[in-house]
């Protein structure tokens, strides 16, 4: 487990400000989830509607291909499942408790297909 450092008041930036940009990735919000999206990669047609509609940035896409979900940030809202075209329906929302039994308690890496630049 990565050790979390809780900073003391003397070293904190004043007034709760965050003196840097682009750090929302560091804030893992996946623990809020009660159910998670599970991708059936064989069915996926890479229309990327789920990628467009995801309110976070939890649909992982590389070179135009849908690879899976960033579960460290996915809050399980289910919009991806909702917008997946009726003829495709490659995303299933699975109860988090069941998913942990089936897929293990791991983060995004387990849910994203392996990818190297230039694979597709």
């Amino acid at each position, binding site marked *: 487990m990565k050790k979390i450092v*809780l*900073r*003391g*008041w003397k070293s*904190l930036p*004043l*007034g*709760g*400000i*965050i*003196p*840097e*940009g*682009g750090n929302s990735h560091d804030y893992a919000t996946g623990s809020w989830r009660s159910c998670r999206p599970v991708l059936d990669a064989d069915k996926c047609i890479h229309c990327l509607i789920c990628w467009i509609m995801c309110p976070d940035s939890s649909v992982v896409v590389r070179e135009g291909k849908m690879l899976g979900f960033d579960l460290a940030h996915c809050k399980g809202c289910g919009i991806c499942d909702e917008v997946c075209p009726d003829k495709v329906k490659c995303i299933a929302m699975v109860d988090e408790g069941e998913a942990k039994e089936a897929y293990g308690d791991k983060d995004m890496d387990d849910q994203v297909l392996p990818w190297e630049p230039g694979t597709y």
Partner: protein
Amino acid sequence: MSKLVALTGNSALAHAFKQVEPDVYAAYPITPSTQITEEFSEYVADGLVKTEFVPTESEHSAMSACIGAAAAGARAATTTSSQGLALMHEVLYIAASYRLPMIMAVVNRALSGPLNIHADHSDTMGSRDCGWIQIYSEGAQEAYDNLFQAVLIGEHPEVRLPVMVCMDGFIVSHSLEGVELIRDETAKKFIGENKPPFSLLDVDQPVTFGPNDLSDYYTEHRKQQSEAIKNAMPVIREVARRWEEVTGRAYGYFEPYRIEDAEYIVLAIGSVAGTIKDAVDELRQGGLKAGLLKVRVYRPFPGEEIAQAIRNAKAVAVMDRADAFGALGGPLFTDVAAALYDNPDQPHCINYVYGLGGRDVSLENVFGVYHRLEEIARTGKLGQRCQYLTVRSEDHGQEPALEIT
């Protein structure tokens, strides 16, 4: 070189704002502070200052605009009174907790209801714990002097807090007084450049103000704020010393008036101090060892220094121009009483709530307070600790001031 000019309290502060020349001045007019914003807007319209003047649709918006401006790195300022300050209430905490220095002139006026536009301190006393530094002025000269000092106190890197400069409505704001003005160059040199550590407009160093702060960090941020306002104590003294070098006018956390050997001391804030000084002089002529301690800096509260200054008195009376309903006395009284608590030989301490909604305080009223202190010291009987000064309990007939024909 400075010049002496006859100005109302409001004009003196408008002039001070002109010399401070904040980057942004956002305000909504309200009696009795309206003239400050009105005159300052004329300075803007006449091109005498480069300030961005923002006429907002409410005081809540005015304070919010100041917060936005200060977060962007600007020197921001506003002015208000009474209901306007009350409407700002939630955003006052935001300004202080984001550690954004700014200056606000507050012309003290009673809070409704019933509706009353005249002087009392219920407005700023309602904001006493919101994290702002509060400096009170006895007259127009003090208000003028305090405004410049407020800029430096708030912007000090160890402090970084907003400051309100308070003066009594009408009694000071609308009365003419000889005010010694410093030269524009002197003012500019005194306040210097604002050096904010962060700016919302700095794209090379992006910064987020006001993120969600949960239970794992909120306490630490509050502790920072608590330390910052304590840090203001030595800064206030140092800034006053520099102001004295420039103007020759000395300021401290409070002004002691004939208290060295005083047996009976009254503590008060604001314009009533003038009346009390006259009363002290007369009582001293009659042989009563009277003294006054006029509190200038109320937040941070100089408790130790006040306790030290009044410890040898036989009896003290704390005058509050606002009630704190349901509390053990007015706001100043509860602070002074708490400050005295550690003192083993503390003097008798009583409280008067006075001057509400602009009610006049006469010399006779003040004599009455000192005579009661003398009686308490003589008999050892305290009586009712907290009471209203000049309150009618029974109907009272009075001759009309003018005969109506």
